[in-house]
């Protein structure tokens, strides 16, 4: 991989950290550079510490590392929080005129720029962060003109004067550094002719939903899933859809269920605490055989846990949540682009198999922005399959001897005909009670067994008909097999490069399907070492692999609230290879 640069801006919540970081990330993307962003943030509106971090390279970047090259520090705490990541040759941009006395670690270049004064010169103190961006451009030999377009994007709505002032602010920052410092830190940001799009996982899920024909979204705000709702708001209307903010998650999932019964492709998204409430309705979605996409953007639990921190702790909840036995699909996208494609798939599976589909993403995917070539979201490749949705001409085939519609007909593949309201002569009730083919309550043993079997037969059908493939990386014959699910894919792929440099070859299976999931028995048996990597304390996915393959695996887990970093993962995998598997 070409040399990467790690840049960050940090300060207090309310300092405009996010929008400043985004402006720089967009400028880098416009310059044909790959970008991978991450955020340090707390659940508060003002104060505390928050940072927006960018890793950029001309090659693809898929994860974060614990090295920081350039830091724009608006507070001393920003420096303190990142002191371990700074190194000899790092630079800190700060405003020496501000009241705090910056303590710059040894070996780190102190770039004192009067951010506030220069911003005032350009038209207002509020632009001090943009002055810092200009200063960063000077240090990295990056043409400040690349900022112009992203400043237009950010401030265009506020008028050309504001945009012009911001451009001026950036230039003043750049000139100040060029005139006052002679830095030779070796950071030169090459540019390329490539065009990239820059988006986060929540946005990719929202865009996937629109591409897939989602017309109804009901949700309740919760970090880190709110961005899905915010993305859809204002866009779904273009296609005749609607976003409704419900009074709670109990309501949100039931609204979405209602819209789905009415025939719309419907979705709700939430995070841990909301998924707990929604669990009440999981069984109803399944027994009424309603196609519904339920997104869980995981965060650190249990209870309120660490709301702005990463964790993959809800696997068991989405797989087993709800009383009774509930046929369902659980899909976990492994990259931001996959958030888009797996959302499209989720809608198709929901309608083809008339059952809940859980799309399980996590905070690391949701708040990270990453560049992709626009072809990664090829809209022509989006296929829509509405399953056994029937119209009036087909109703006759599904009536019983008394002319009543068999909405839960017991079929060979388990999938019943679906007639949406308004379809003549197909009026029927569906219910959370056990029911017969007509949807009417029953407690007769034979019918109970027939309906349970029929519902689970859909899963078996899907297992046979659909492709539940892993994404495979590395040496297929390597002795060490690493298995993971969800967002760890990028960090593991990069860790593999580091391991390879140390002579350790690894085969990596990145599993996007939790249920149904691929059978990895042969792969596990063929490997000398099997290491399952995930962001939780107990190894929930490792449990599933052991259950499937009847083989003990090694576990690399992390539950600090921070995603895996490539270099630490490389060390942990190497250490795991060296230890014995424990029962």
């Amino acid at each position: 991989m070409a040399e990467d640069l790690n840049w960050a801006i940090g300060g207090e919540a309310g300092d405009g950290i996010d929008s400043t970081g985004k402006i720089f990330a967009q400028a880098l993307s416009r310059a044909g550079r790959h970008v991978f962003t991450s955020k340090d943030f707390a659940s508060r509106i003002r104060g505390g510490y928050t940072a927006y971090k960018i890793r950029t390279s001309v090659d693809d970047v898929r994860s974060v590392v614990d090295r920081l090259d350039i830091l724009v520090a608006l507070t001393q705490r920003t420096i303190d929080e990142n002191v371990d990541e700074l190194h000899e040759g790092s630079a800190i941009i700060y405003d020496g005129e501000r009241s705090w006395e910056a303590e710059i670690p040894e070996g780190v270049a102190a770039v004192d720029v009067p951010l506030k004064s220069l911003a005032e010169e350009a038209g207002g103190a509020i632009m001090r962060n943009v002055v810092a961006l200009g200063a960063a451009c000077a240090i990295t030999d990056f043409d400040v003109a690349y900022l112009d377009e992203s400043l237009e994007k950010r401030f265009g709505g506020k008028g050309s004067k504001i945009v012009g002032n911001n451009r001026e602010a950036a230039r003043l920052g750049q000139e100040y550094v060029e005139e006052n410092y002679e830095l030779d830190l070796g950071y030169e940001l090459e540019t390329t002719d490539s065009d990239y799009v820059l988006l986060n996982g929540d946005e990719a899920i929202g865009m996937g939903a629109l591409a897939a024909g989602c017309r109804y979204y009901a949700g309740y705000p919760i970090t880190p899933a709110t961005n899905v709702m915010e993305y859809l708001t204002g866009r779904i209307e273009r296609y005749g859809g609607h976003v409704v903010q419900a009074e709670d998650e109990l309501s949100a999932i039931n609204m979405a269920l209602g819209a789905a019964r009415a025939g719309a492709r419907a979705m709700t998204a939430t995070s841990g605490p909301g998924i707990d409430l929604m669990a009440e309705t999981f069984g109803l979605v399944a027994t009424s055989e309603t196609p519904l996409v339920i997104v869980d953007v995981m965060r650190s639990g249990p209870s309120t846990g660490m709301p702005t921190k990463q964790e993959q702790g809800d696997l068991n909840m989405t797989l087993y949540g709800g009383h009774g036995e509930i046929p369902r699909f659980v899909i976990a996208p492994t990259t931001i682009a996959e958030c888009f494609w797996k959302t499209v798939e989720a809608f198709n599976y929901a309608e083809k198999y008339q059952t809940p589909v859980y799309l399980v993403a996590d905070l690391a995917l949701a708040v990270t922005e990453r560049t992709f070539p626009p072809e990664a979201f090829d809209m022509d490749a989006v296929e829509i399959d509405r399953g056994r949705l029937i119209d009036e001409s087909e109703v006759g085939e599904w009536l019983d001897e008394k002319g009543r519609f068999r909405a839960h007909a017991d079929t060979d593949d388990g999938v019943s005909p679906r007639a949406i309201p308004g379809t003549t002569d197909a009026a029927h009730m569906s219910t959370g009670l056990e029911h017969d083919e007509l949807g009417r309550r029953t407690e007769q043993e034979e019918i109970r067994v027939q309906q349970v079997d029929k519902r689970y037969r859909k899963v078996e059908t899907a297992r046979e008909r659909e492709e539940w493939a892993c994404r495979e990386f590395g040496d297929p014959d390597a002795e060490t097999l690493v298995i993971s699910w969800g967002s760890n894919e990028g960090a593991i792929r990069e860790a593999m490069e580091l391991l390879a440099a140390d002579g350790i070859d690894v085969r990596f299976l990145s599993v996007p399907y939790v249920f149904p999931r691929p059978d990895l028995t042969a792969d596990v048996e063929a490997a000398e070492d099997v290491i399952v990597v995930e962001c939780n304390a107990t190894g929930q996915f490792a449990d599933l692999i052991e259950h499937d393959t009847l083989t003990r695996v090694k576990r690399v887990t992390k539950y600090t609230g921070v995603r895996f970093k490539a270099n630490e993962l490389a060390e942990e995998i190497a250490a795991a290879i060296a230890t014995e598997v424990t029962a």
Partner: protein
Amino acid sequence: MSSQVRFTDFKSDKQPTWCPGCGDFGTMNGMMKALAETGNDPDNTFIVAGIGCSGKIGTYMHSYALHGVHGRALPVGTGVKMARPDLEVMVAGGDGDGYSIGAGHFVHAVRRNVDMSYIVMDNRIYGLTKGQASPTSREDFETSTTPEGPKQPPVNPLALALAAGASFIAQSFSSDALRHQEIVQAAIEHDGFGFVNVYSPCVTFNDVDTYDYFRDSLVDLKEAGHDPNDHEAAKDVILDADKEYQGVIYRDENSVPYGAQHGLESDMSEIPDGAPEDATDLVREFY
């Protein structure tokens, strides 16, 4: 479905298991007649039922229907109507479903003012679980779980609705068949959330709020010359703790339902075979 819809078309061939004499029979008959009378048929009608004796209504009626989770009938109805403005949506449940476990949804459904009707069979008791206090039970009503009575005032659902900004509030009595039907019909015809609290006596577990009690105490607002467009008069009726009333208590003639507020006109069930034509614009936004 033929153009001549009769109310019996809304009846399923399943025999109700309600106790003989249950108020829910009369409540249901009035709902079926009101639906037929307002030009609906089972194929364009969606009924959402809650849990409890009243929740069984979805089984005994014939239409598109969902019998859902306890307390969540209103959110389901909300989703159906938003996705399909062409459907007639009626939500039915009991006092426990609507004013206890679903009370939060009730307040917000009233505020939201979605164009659907909400029929609550209020018998002031939990019948299906065999006689426990409900949110509308009297303070001194002795039950198996409240041997000395709940010792807390009953919920006044009409006042809750009024406080939440209801555009239509009515109350009826299941045994006054004509008046009940007329009131449900008005709720269906109302542009917005048509809320009807129906006194629907439980003959098995409630020996206080009986047919005789309601017959003797009900004041008919139509006969009393009440003007439902008068918000102040509605407030007086609703907060009058000494009497029971039947009739349309409040109706906002200028009600603008949620769908009209938000421009919801599309049938959301119809989507293209692939991504929307201009979907690449969505990608372009991220340049």
